[in-house]
């Protein structure tokens, strides 16, 4: 039996992480969290999470970066915004979850075959490359990259969709793909600039966030 320390040490903190998250537009209110637990109580998925949303809020604010970015919580958030609209301190909890997801992806903090971040990244790639997403192709790619056995278990669903004309056989795409590419290149260039600036000022430019 493997025993793990369940109490956090001061030394587990990555100083400045909370500040960094709270400086992102839309995440500022986290500073005012009163730990009431309304978010955890409302969340339809909290029963499956390793840390409840309330805990993730405090862990983030208190710089426990590794715990937060490794948690299943951020990936289980299905973006229903129930917590966000009820938070008595107007903390945009869903948006903070998005911010944490982005950081977990950029810094490689998730298990390799964990399907949710894989789906997010494949979605990102497909929408870039094609301009549109064809859901059944996307799901197939995700299964091939995460769990081929699960893909086999989906054959019946695929067949049922096909029979009802809900399983397109060709990929959708936009006409002016190069236009979209040029637009994204602008953001990429800015991110690189922001990164460089971050390094010069010794700040935490470890990831893109457009322009701040």
């Amino acid at each position, binding site marked *: 039996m493997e025993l793990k320390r369940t109490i956090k040490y001061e030394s587990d903190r990555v100083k400045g992480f909370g500040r960094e998250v709270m400086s992102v537009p839309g995440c500022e209110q986290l500073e005012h969290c009163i730990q009431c637990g309304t978010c955890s109580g409302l969340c339809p998925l909290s029963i499956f999470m390793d840390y409840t949303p309330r805990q993730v809020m405090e862990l983030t604010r208190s710089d426990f970066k590794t715990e937060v970015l490794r948690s299943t919580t951020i990936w289980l958030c*299905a973006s229903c915004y129930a917590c966000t609209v009820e938070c008595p301190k107007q903390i945009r909890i869903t948006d903070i979850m998005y911010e944490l997801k982005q950081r977990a992806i950029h810094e490689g903090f998730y298990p390799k075959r964990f399907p949710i971040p894989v789906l997010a990244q494949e*979605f990102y790639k497909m929408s870039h490359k094609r301009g549109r997403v064809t859901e059944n192709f996307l799901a197939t790619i995700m299964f091939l990259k995460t769990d081929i056995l699960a893909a086999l278990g989906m054959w019946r669903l695929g067949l049922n969709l096909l029979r009802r004309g*809900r399983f397109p056989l060709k990929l959708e795409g936009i006409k002016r793909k190069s236009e979209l590419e040029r637009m994204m290149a602008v953001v990429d260039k800015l991110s690189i600039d922001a990164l460089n600036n971050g390094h010069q000022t010794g700040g935490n430019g470890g990831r893109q966030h457009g*322009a701040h």
Partner: protein
Amino acid sequence: MKYSYFPGCSLKGTGRAYEESLLPVLKVLGVELEELDDWNCCGATAYMAVDEVKACVMASRNLAIAEKAGHKELLAPCSACYLVLNKTKHYLHESPVVEAVVQKALRQANLTYSGNTPVRHPLDLLVNNVGIEEIKKHVKHPLKGLKIAPYYGCQIVRPYATFDDQYNPTTMDRLLEAIGCTMVTYPLKTRCCGGSLTGTLPEPGLLCSYILLKEAITRGADVIATVCPLCQFNLDCYRDKMKGKWGHETIPDPRNKDARVPVGPHLDIPVVFFTQLIGLAFGLSEKELGLQRGFAPMRKPACAQRQSAAA
């Protein structure tokens, strides 16, 4: 009035029936649509998890194309598209820095964003522009006696309550009552269906959807009406898996209040788009409305009797 129309990816794929039913219904009502030229994916919930600024750029391309098209408003039937487009507008309004990046990117495509094109949802348009009274005039076959669980899902009422109440939305209730349906009390009308989790982590995802189906059945609904292609997919397409997991659970017997019956056979409750019901009431054919695409097909008005006979 003519509207720009942003179908989004789902309405061209798994959620085709939504587009197939929305277009003829609006046509009957004299609402003209023009599909947005070369629209791209809104980014949905997945894209934002990878790069929020790029997500804004993706979404704003559509907003800018809509402005260029010159129609006053943009119609976005899919809940995720509706939210993402509105969220982008909020975000650009709040953050001048992000807006500057977006404008710079848009210039690459000779586009510009002014924020002057409101994004509207078909429920909003039908209730507040077309009007319930006008809709009633077109009803040829009222769906009398059909009991509906109105399921709105998350993203059209949260985080922004734009045209309906956040806690107890009623626009769909009113529309469907106008075409003769009866609404059952459905307290879960805005509870999460699990979103894309049903495909990625079935254990928690399917539970969310199953809870919604079970509640509708327990409340005596014949049909669940949805407004979102992903909600419709989740409630409609995973029934086999749900039956395997929870089919043995019991619910009160609809015929005998003192007894309980397994929920399994009842899980085949039709899950349709609200526009399909309106289309039926307008006298459009099942095929025209894409009703054959549902996993638990619903037959024309006789459905009410058929359901109670089967129960």
